[in-house]
């Protein structure tokens, strides 16, 4: 809302207060100042009225004129000018050299295309008066004396502060409400509002009224008033009124409309004026009938239904109640009799109507935030005064009022010391009383505390805590002391997932990966690549804003692959990238589950050359990272199993899934689909890995590890090489070896490790087979193992592999 300093001064004495000081006061009352403008002509003492005595075309520039200008000096000034809208003898504003224009530009004696110019003739815009006609501001009609400082022709400039009003403060959508807060903050009194039109109303129209009936048949409008004014002469508004509207950013239309708007700005109460001739029979406030149509002021025709409340005559709806007037019942030049409406509507209903019609007007904005029911009549009387004074209107009698101003009196009991207790500092009940009274609250000391009656314009204040806010706003938040922190509570620890995120991030940073953050909202194409069409559909947004942000993400890998490509394209070596974040996956039971995902991606071979090369980043390095991350999340390595995977983001048979037996963690690693990464612009292969952990993985606080004793005797190691068909996975063979080696050790000693140290395919082996060699470590807890024991154990392993699994052991 735009607050004119001059208009505000009518409501509160601002003597000695600058607009800059006001700009500091308002935010601390909860009225944020978003912008400050000068309205009118800023003080420009060296801009004077000049007369263009003569002019000729500039010898070197077609678009410029060289003018001889009389500014009341002994000699004429030569000024070069680019405007075209003047003739000899015109009077115009002239900025003399040394003037700093409102835009900050300083006028100097200069040469324009080699011709001397000693000043500048000004346009409306250059003077900061807003966009006027093209070219110079022509002052000729007013015939101001040559040499008169321009400021003498224009009034004192005003300052307009644009404030944002929070939804709870409907009362501050009128100047009066803002003034009340300012007065309270400055400790000054609110100036009285003068009204001539008497108070009072009648329940039914009299013969003089221009309507036969006024009624409200809907609870949306519990209070409706209508006043007939005759002999209205529609015409322009007086200058002061136009000025006030323009300062507030409204366009003057005619005196009747301007007066209703002016009263709205003053009080926050929207009013509406009907042309009585266009109203048939009377006025009824009712819910609209399904299918009724109404052409609104903005020219749009809307089809109504029972969700909208209208002001109708005997025939048809005229106005969407509280939102917008109709195109054909408003005041126009020939109007002579008007019906002035002032009413109160249920805020929630007006908000719904406005939303339903997709409009927000000055009126609906205020009704939706609750206007003061007790201010309805006052607004009508203020407008009547002005219509009488400035539109020649005659009052035929009291207003017709149906219903009563709603709202019961709100009385709040503040127990002694309540406010102080919430602030955490000493304030006396007397201070509280004085402060609340300044805001219009009625406060009385009662046994055990204070009794506060809330004024009708503050529907947001209902509870003791609301009064604490009122008090501190005016008392000043700077008086709240800086409390000394209390000691922490024992036994509190971060969520396990938060600790995990910290650890896993540090681990990956240590491994050379740089962390990325990508948007959670992704494209349809990406989701379809990740999950297929059906899976993708489960993650679509209801109301996406843009075509490239239609789905919630199912994987961090596409983001990382994109980041690799983007960095490579700008010749920045991305090295390894990682991301930690939430992803979503549709589940078999039809729900969508959130997972904490950790993903890494790296080009298989780096783009930066080095004097010494390191091996490529490969899928098994990615696997190692995943195993470590699973371990950090409490999923032991031996619980993980693997299977090759096909398609999607991954390159078939060069990538695998990882899963743990308890289905706590799932993941994938390997080479990304080459077709896809090439589409992204990456020439080489990308190796990536991603692990997904559900919330349930982090339910429990982590257990402290317990110490386990270990043997101080040396291990015995034996090698075994197995020839298996190429289709058999290394994991399967290792599991067999492990089982056999465990069994062979029996209860006497233990298996410590099975390490695959050689994989061989090629000459010397039967076709379609491969050889896998393992080193087996056994160890005894309390002595060194004998050769005999280990040889026996090895033989048992060999037998198990050959007889049990049907494989050949190399001898």
């Amino acid at each position, binding site marked *: 809302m735009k607050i004119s300093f001059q208009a505000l001064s009518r409501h509160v004495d601002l003597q000695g207060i600058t607009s800059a000081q006001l700009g500091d006061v308002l935010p601390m009352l909860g009225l944020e100042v978003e912008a400050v403008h000068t309205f009118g002509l800023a003080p420009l003492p060296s801009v004077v009225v000049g007369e263009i005595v003569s002019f000729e075309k500039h010898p070197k520039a077609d678009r410029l004129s060289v003018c001889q200008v009389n500014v009341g000096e002994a000699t004429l000034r030569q000024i070069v000018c680019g405007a075209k809208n003047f003739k000899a003898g015109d009077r115009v504003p002239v900025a003399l050299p040394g003037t700093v224009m409102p835009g900050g530009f300083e006028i100097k004696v200069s040469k324009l295309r080699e011709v001397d110019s000693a000043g500048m003739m000004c346009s409306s815009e250059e003077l900061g008066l807003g966009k006027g006609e093209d070219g110079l501001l022509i002052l000729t009609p007013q015939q101001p004396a040559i040499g008169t400082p321009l400021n003498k022709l224009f009034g004192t400039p005003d300052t307009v502060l644009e404030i944002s009003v929070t939804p709870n*403060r409907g009362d501050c959508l009128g100047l009066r409400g803002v003034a009340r807060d300012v007065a309270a903050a400055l400790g000054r009194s609110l100036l009285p509002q003068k009204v001539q039109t008497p108070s009072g109303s009648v329940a039914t129209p009299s013969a003089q009224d221009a309507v036969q009936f006024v009624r409200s048949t809907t609870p949306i409008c519990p209070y409706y008033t209508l006043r007939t004014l005759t002999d209205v002469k529609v015409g322009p508004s007086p200058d002061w009124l136009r000025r006030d509207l323009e300062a507030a950013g409204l366009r003057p239309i005619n005196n009747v409309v301007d007066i209703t708007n002016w009263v709205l700005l003053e009080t926050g109460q929207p009013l509406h004026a009907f042309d009585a001739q266009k109203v048939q029979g009377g006025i009824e406030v009712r819910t609209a009938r399904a299918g009724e149509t109404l052409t609104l002021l903005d020219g749009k025709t809307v089809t109504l239904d029972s969700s909208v409340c209208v002001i109708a005559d005997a025939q048809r709806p005229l106005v969407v109640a509280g939102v917008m007037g109709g195109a054909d019942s408003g005041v126009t030049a020939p109007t002579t009799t008007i019906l002035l409406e002032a009413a109160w509507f249920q805020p929630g209903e007006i908000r719904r109507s406005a939303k339903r019609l997709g409009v927000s007007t000055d009126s609906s904005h205020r009704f939706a935030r609750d206007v003061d029911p007790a201010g309805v009549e006052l607004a009508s009387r203020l407008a009547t005064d002005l219509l009488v004074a400035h539109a020649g209107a005659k009052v035929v009698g009291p207003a017709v009022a149906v219903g009563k101003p709603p709202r019961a009196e709100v009385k709040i009991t503040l127990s002694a010391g309540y406010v102080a207790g919430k602030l955490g*500092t000493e304030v006396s009940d007397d201070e509280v009383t004085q402060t609340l009274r300044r805001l219009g609250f009625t406060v009385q000391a009662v046994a055990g505390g204070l009794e506060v009656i809330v004024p009708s314009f503050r529907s947001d204040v209902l509870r003791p805590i609301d009064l604490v*806010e009122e008090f501190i706003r005016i008392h000043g938040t700077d008086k709240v002391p800086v409390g000394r922190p209390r000691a922490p509570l024992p036994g509190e*620890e971060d*969520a396990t997932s938060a600790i995990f995120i910290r650890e896993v991030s540090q681990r990956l940073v240590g491994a050379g990966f740089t962390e990325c953050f990508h948007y959670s909202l992704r494209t349809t194409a990406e989701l379809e690549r990740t999950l297929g069409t059906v899976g993708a559909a489960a993650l679509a947004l209801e109301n996406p804003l843009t075509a490239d942000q239609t789905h*919630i993400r199912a994987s961090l890998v596409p983001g990382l692959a994109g980041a690799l490509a983007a960095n490579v394209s700008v010749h920045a070596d991305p090295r390894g990238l990682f991301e930690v974040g939430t992803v979503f996956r549709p589940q078999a039971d039809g*729900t969508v589950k959130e997972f904490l995902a950790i993903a890494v991606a790296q080009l298989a071979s780096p783009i930066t050359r080095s004097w010494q090369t390191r091996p490529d980043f490969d899928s098994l390095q990615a696997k190692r990272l995943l195993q470590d991350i699973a371990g950090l999340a409490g999923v032991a390595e031996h619980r993980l199993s693997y299977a090759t995977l096909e398609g999607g983001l991954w390159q078939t048979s060069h990538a695998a899934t990882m899963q743990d037996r308890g289905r706590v963690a799932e993941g994938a690693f390997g080479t990304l689909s080459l077709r896809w990464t090439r589409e992204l612009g990456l020439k080489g292969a990308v190796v990536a890995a991603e692990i997904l952990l559900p*919330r349930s993985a982090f339910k429990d606080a982590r257990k402290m590890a317990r110490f386990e004793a270990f043997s101080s005797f040396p291990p015995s190691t034996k090698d075994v090489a197995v020839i298996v068909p190429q289709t058999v996975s290394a994991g399967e063979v290792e599991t067999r070896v492990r089982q056999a080696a465990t069994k062979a050790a029996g209860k006497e000693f233990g298996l410590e490790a099975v390490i695959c140290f050689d994989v061989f395919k090629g000459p010397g082996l039967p076709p379609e087979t491969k050889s896998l060699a393992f080193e087996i470590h056994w160890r005894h807890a309390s002595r060194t193992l004998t050769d005999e024991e280990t040889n026996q154990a090895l033989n048992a392993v060999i037998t198990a592999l050959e007889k049990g699994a049907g494989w050949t052991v190399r001898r």
Partner: protein
Amino acid sequence: MQQQLAQLVATARQESASVTTRAELEAFKARVVGPHGSLTQVMKGMATLSKEDRPVVGKLINEAKKAVEEILAALLQKVEDAEIASALSAPLDPTLPSPDAPAGNLHPLSRTRERILNSFRKLGFTVAEGPEVETEWYCFDALNTPGDHPARDMQDTLYLPKTFRSADAPRRQEEAMLLRTHTSSVQVRTMLSRRPPFRIVAPGRCFRRDAVDATHSANFHQVEGLWIDRGVTLADLRGVLDFFVKETFGADAEIRLRPSFFPFTEPSFEMDLRSPNLGRLSNRWLEIMGCGLVDPKVLELCGLDPQEWSGLAFGLGLERIAMLVHGIDDIRHFYQNDVRFLRQFA
């Protein structure tokens, strides 16, 4: 005898010069001190000597033996040095670059988050988390923002279809599912699941239906704070925020609480920050976060008795803080992941 020994030592010394490998060393050793070695032969001759001569000759032999041992020790040193030298590659040039990639680094938003969480941890606030897909009840209703409340106008929300069912945030009734617009929903979940007193901070990703530009992002991050206890006051709020700001922006940063409105706090404030160390944003009030005392209605909705319990809450934007701390002028940098940006904050 003396002469013979001197000759023996001299010969050994002479021959030792040509020994370079361990095999040659072993052969040489055998020639001198082996069972048939020259010195061994002499020592065997001791037995034939008279009682009187023995001490004199013994002394001579010992001296010769010592000399030979010294020769052998020196030889061993020389041979080992040669072996080690051959086991090494070319000498180190310490100025050559390591071919390995350096350590990575955290994203500036993660670093900022961890710094902030660390500050609050010192005040006893521990991290709590909640789902990113929420139901309207947790995001709005429980926070005293019913359907027709004008405050819902303040946030343009991304919704999920009616058919969407979240495994992590089941509906309470038939309310709509959405992407949370603030981390304040974690306040609700915490109050419903834990017994006060507690102090939590909830970092997390939030969503608005905003077009992306230099200051807007469809997703962004907040850190939410909630302290529920008996007798929590505005002085506590100011104390907590003052501590946080001085931790993050230095001891000469100041704060002010500017009255504002949020449905879930009463009284509500915007906290403004002013610091002399923020480049071109120095020495002016900057809006940093919303805060206030938890509205009694919210306590009630979350099953806490407002007569007994009170609380303070605050929510700050991670991007905003990171931009101020590091002088970053465009929020999109955080999501473009150009490593030339990411590596500036290591």
